[in-house]
């Protein structure tokens, strides 16, 4: 815990502009890229950045809980993603001949890449404008912008995805955005802990649904 705290303190020298830029990149990766590995790394980075942002408005130990929970969520999702071969349906169906020897560009970038990028850009502009003109709270550290941005990108990811894993990443991003706002309103340790349990349960539910879909795909493949 102390080591984590030291790392956290050293990272807290980042300015809130840098943190916002980091959140912009991580959430864009989640919405734009199809590759589960990259999305998972982006989610982990997003949890760290959100905690660093929150460390400015709430006690450090409570902010650290969010990093620990984020780490647990990502480990759960990593193990699931490995089990379902990172969502590559050809492997799951046993159709190895359909699979390229290495991940192709299309495995990483979706067909509607430009559309998603445009949506992300639009969401960024709207979040900035809303966060500046109608801030939820009076904190100056870009809390409102971060909240609008994460909630917006979370919703868009849910809308644009058809796989439970990606929908789950969208829901976790939405939840993270809401927690940014709520952490400034309610700073108690018990609420932070309960929100952490909610996040872990959500990750477990995503895991369960992703694995269940694997069963369906395998059955269809056998037919």
């Amino acid at each position, binding site marked *: 815990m102390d080591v984590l705290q030291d790392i956290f303190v050293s990272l807290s020298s980042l300015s809130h502009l840098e943190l916002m830029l980091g959140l912009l990149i991580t959430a864009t990766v989640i919405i734009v890229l199809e590759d589960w590995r990259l999305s998972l790394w982006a989610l982990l980075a997003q949890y760290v950045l959100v905690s660093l942002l929150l460390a400015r408005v709430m006690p450090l130990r409570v902010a650290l809980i969010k990093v620990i929970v984020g780490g647990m969520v990502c480990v759960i999702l990593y193990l699931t993603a490995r089990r379902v071969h990172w969502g590559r349906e050809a492997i799951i169906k046993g159709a190895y001949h359909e699979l390229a020897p290495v991940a192709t560009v299309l495995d990483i970038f979706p067909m509607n890449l430009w559309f998603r990028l445009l949506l992300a850009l639009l969401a960024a502009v709207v979040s900035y404008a809303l966060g500046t003109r109608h801030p939820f709270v009076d904190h100056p550290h870009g809390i409102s912008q971060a909240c609008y941005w994460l909630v917006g990108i979370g919703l868009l990811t849910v809308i644009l995805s058809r796989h*439970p894993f990606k929908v789950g990443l969208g829901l976790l991003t939405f939840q993270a955005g*809401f927690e940014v706002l709520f952490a400034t309103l*309610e700073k108690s340790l*018990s*609420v932070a802990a*309960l929100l952490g349990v*909610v996040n872990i349960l*959500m990750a477990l*539910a995503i895991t369960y*649904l992703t694995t269940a879909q694997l069963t369906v795909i395998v059955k269809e493949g056998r037919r």
Partner: protein
Amino acid sequence: MSLILLIFVPLTVAVPVYFLRRHWSAAVFVSLATTLILIGVCSQAPLGEPAYILGRELVLDELSGFLLIFLLSLASLMILYAWQIPQGWAFIPSLLAILGLLSGAIMIRTFLIAVLLLEMAALVFVFMIHGRRPAPVGTAIGYVVPLVMAIPCLLLVSWLTESYALHPDNLLLIRFTVIALSAGFGILLAAAPFHSWLPTVAEGAPFAASASLICIFNPVVLALLLGVLNSHLWLTTGSPVLLVISTSGLLTALVAGVLAFAQRDPGRLMAYAAISDMGFVLVGLGTGSLTSTTGALAHIVNRSLLVLLLAMSLGTLRTYHKDGSVSTLREALRRTPGSIVGYIVGGLALGGFPLFNGFATRWLVYRSLPGDNLLYSGALLLAGAGVVLGYVRSLSLMLQPSPELKAEREPLLVTVMTLSLAALCLLLGLAPGLVVDPILKIVQEMAFIAGG
């Protein structure tokens, strides 16, 4: 101490029950013993005496005591049913975990914590969605997404109500509270226009799982709504929240009643009938009088019994008749007498057909409407007619000739359970006071009724 047991015992027992899943009878026995013991604990627990957990106050008042005993009884019936007609290996452990979390949500005084416990219970429900056959992916996603959207609204309600206490002259806070409250509770109660997730779940998930969502989860959400209205009287006196509730109830009853008539899938039909009934409950609650609120709460009790009866009947019919079709009524009655009777009684009663319990409490809601409000009365009658006609139509569709029939007869225990529930529905229809009188005493104590 006993209040803390009500939360942690089912949560703890869920773990060994999960590991006992290969010894199904043992798992059922342990679960059933747990729920029965908890009913005993709950009935013996002193009312109004607080207990503390992590500095937060837990209280079992008359409403929460009544609700907990009722929910635990329903859960016992579901466990007994799942013993005979398996609903997937995760059903019973998940049900126990949900009971523990919902007990906490009902008893804890802090609304914020109650909402978080409610969200946890709702997330555990995901593990029930896949029964013995995996449900379509859209079923689970269609459930999780609205749930995750609804909870932040309720968390905001807790903050907004606290802020209003500090700034009572800020009218914007009232407006935002009403919006957040309507959206959050509207989604969780599947009120129109947020109703579409419930039919999706009921179509894909096992019937007992859908029933647990409607019979166990919905009453707790409604209890939380009542808790908010009771604790913040300014909401009922200084905001249009009751008008929003009753208008949304009317819309819900009407939309779902009309859509119920068009359904061919029995799961979707059950869901639309339940949503239409929730509309009646909301109209009763939104009217805000002693009679209407009593009628609304009594109707929630009857609705839970009826949905459980329907879900049990449908689950058995789906297991014992391929695609839910039977060749003739006589053949069906010979093989699955309890389920056919349960399906007919449940369907008619849920639509408010006279003599059954669904009619008795609907009548209370009708009577409590202002005398000149023909729009409300007409719309509610139309909604009930839609549900009844939907069930008549669905029964005629079910009685199509089918070449594939299982030779077995439904288990005797299931026949006894469904027939007993059907008889109870008839009894409560003939003697509605058995449910209405205890609820009337509880409602009389409610601050927003007394204040109104």
